[in-house]
């Protein structure tokens, strides 16, 4: 995975609460064989609304999404994270997330920043006219207006994201332990 250090640029001022994974990517997109291309289905129902942020050229290609409470609730589909990634989103900023979604986002190299609602309100306002920057190393969200909002992140996740380590790669680095286990298993349970 690509290391995540800073993410800066325009942000979709989406702001909605309780956005479930069916809104992020409707069920009809589940019968795919690739992670790529799911961006086309991202927020499909929202995009039918006139004036939605996803079709507004101001935000085209924005790497950040700002949302309300409980982002990514509902079905555990990993397609939600893939769809956001395919849309070009590298970070979401919201007051809270469903656990499964933030886990899936992390596994796919997407940063989920948690900040309280008043900060979200301020960022929504800035995002309409200006870019935003997220500095993962310093755990800080900044705006061109000298706003500085510190955020917390699990140290393990931070380490993985900063170094572009995906879980599979991390575990593969433990090859010696796995091989030792396999050798012992082959001796004690040769039928497996």
């Amino acid at each position, binding site marked *: 995975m690509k290391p995540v250090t800073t993410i800066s640029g325009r942000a979709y001022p989406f702001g909605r609460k309780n956005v479930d994974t069916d809104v992020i990517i409707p069920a009809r997109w589940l*019968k*795919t*064989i*690739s*992670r790529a291309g799911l961006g086309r289905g991202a927020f499909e129902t929202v995009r039918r609304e006139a004036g939605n942020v996803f079709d507004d050229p101001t935000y085209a290609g924005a790497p950040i999404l700002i949302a309300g409470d409980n982002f990514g609730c509902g079905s*555990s589909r*990993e397609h939600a994270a*893939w769809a956001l990634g395919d849309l070009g989103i590298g970070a979401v900023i919201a007051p809270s997330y469903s656990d499964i979604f933030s886990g*899936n986002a992390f*596994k*796919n190299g997407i940063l989920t920043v948690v900040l309280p609602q008043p900060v979200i309100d301020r960022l929504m306002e800035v995002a309409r006219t200006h870019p935003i920057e997220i500095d993962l190393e310093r755990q800080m969200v900044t705006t061109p207006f000298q706003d500085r909002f510190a955020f917390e992140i699990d140290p393990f996740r931070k380490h993985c994201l900063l170094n572009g380590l*995906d*879980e*599979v*790669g991390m*575990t*593969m680095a*433990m090859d010696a*332990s*796995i091989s030792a*286990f*396999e050798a012992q*298993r082959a001796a004690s*349970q*040769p*039928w*497996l």
Partner: protein
Amino acid sequence: MTSKARTLYEKIWNAHVVDRRDDGTCLIYIDRHLVHEVTSPQAFEGLRVAGRPVRRPDLTLAVPDHNLPTTARLDAAGKRIPIADPESAAQLAALEANAPAFGIRYIDASAPEQGIVHVVGPEQGFTLPGCTLVCGDSHTAAHGALGALAFGIGTSEVEHVLATQTLLLKQAKTMEIRVDGTLGFGVGPKDMILAVIGRIGAAGGNGHVIEYTGSTIRSMSIEGRLTVSNMSIEAGARAGLIAPDDATFAYLKGRPMAPRGADWDAAVAYWRTLPTDAGAVYDRTEIFDAAAISPSVTWGTSPEDVVGIAGVVPDPESFADPSKQEAARKSLDYMGLQAGQRMQDVAVEHIFIGSCTNSRIEDLRAAAAVVNGRRIAGGIKQALVVPGSGLVKRQAEQEGIDRIFKEAGFEWREPGCSACLGMNPDKVPAGERCASTSNRNFVGRQGPGARTHLVSPAMAAAAAVTGRLTDVRDLMGGRTA
């Protein structure tokens, strides 16, 4: 005594820890991995993008099941009949290409061994006691019936297992479900597990691995145990387990992928050490009396919405929890049922006998015994029997079971998940009602707007011949216990 008494779960867990992190997360070795067409394409894509091989293709078995149509697979000339739905066809083609590309054993859609992953694993002897087994499907819990620690995983985890043969997991709590006594006439394993879920609730097992114990389980066939363990996930549990015993060994002996010769003897000796030690403590225990269980049927859209067939649709107001009241009102609205209505007055238009819960030979025999010499009722629009695998199908045909069904007006299909979920052409139309031997009665599970009543194979057969939900005990001679 050197170590403290341990449960079956703890023994299997401890035997598979490769590494333990400070926060309690463990790297767990996975002995067996079943792969199907729906949850694997993106996992293989991930490997390909990163240039990674499958670590142990020899421990991996791929078989298509979820969106394979259950109509004939080959034409008269023996040529493959193409799949009409382009997305299903693409998923199948992806698995067919990925399996050989990564060196994985693949059971082809038209092979005699093809079937639902959870039927094929035990049947081939791929599933073994004491092993860890995963699959990108939540009903992987079924394999726990043989004493394997088996659970469903997501696509990222499928990729993780393919690449590393391990998973990062936290140890679960243990829950004992003890059932003692004899199930009454006309009451089977499906009725039992529905009654269990009805009492402990769809979230009752959250955070736990269930071990089923007691005399009812001990005297139950392996097929019956598979039905029970299969539905552990519907009680919210991560997995279900049943201690391996002589019945387990007799079931596995001689299966194509089971150990042989000296390996077999060594394996059985090890498997005999697995059952929970006397004095081991479970985090929670629930006790059931088999004799008190009657044929079960669901009325709502959660597998916990269970009543005995002699019962009535409950009044939503009768639930203590306001959120359950609200859920029940919504369920009744979706299901088109009234509070107080007798379950036996509910007419059905569809019958589905199949799914990884109830598509093995004993299930088909139980249903055929009810259907034998009878015909499906006039109001039934479609009655499907979908054997769980090609081997089940062939055995049923040798026993003449297929004829019993066909003469009664059932359709006799090719193996697959079929109407268990609306991913292939077998669907229940919106607003229509199905007596189904599958495991989920969720909104839209059998197709958008479909109304599902979960029942046992014998009860599905009884509904087929009367055209309404029916107490199979009355139909079969009025015996009630």
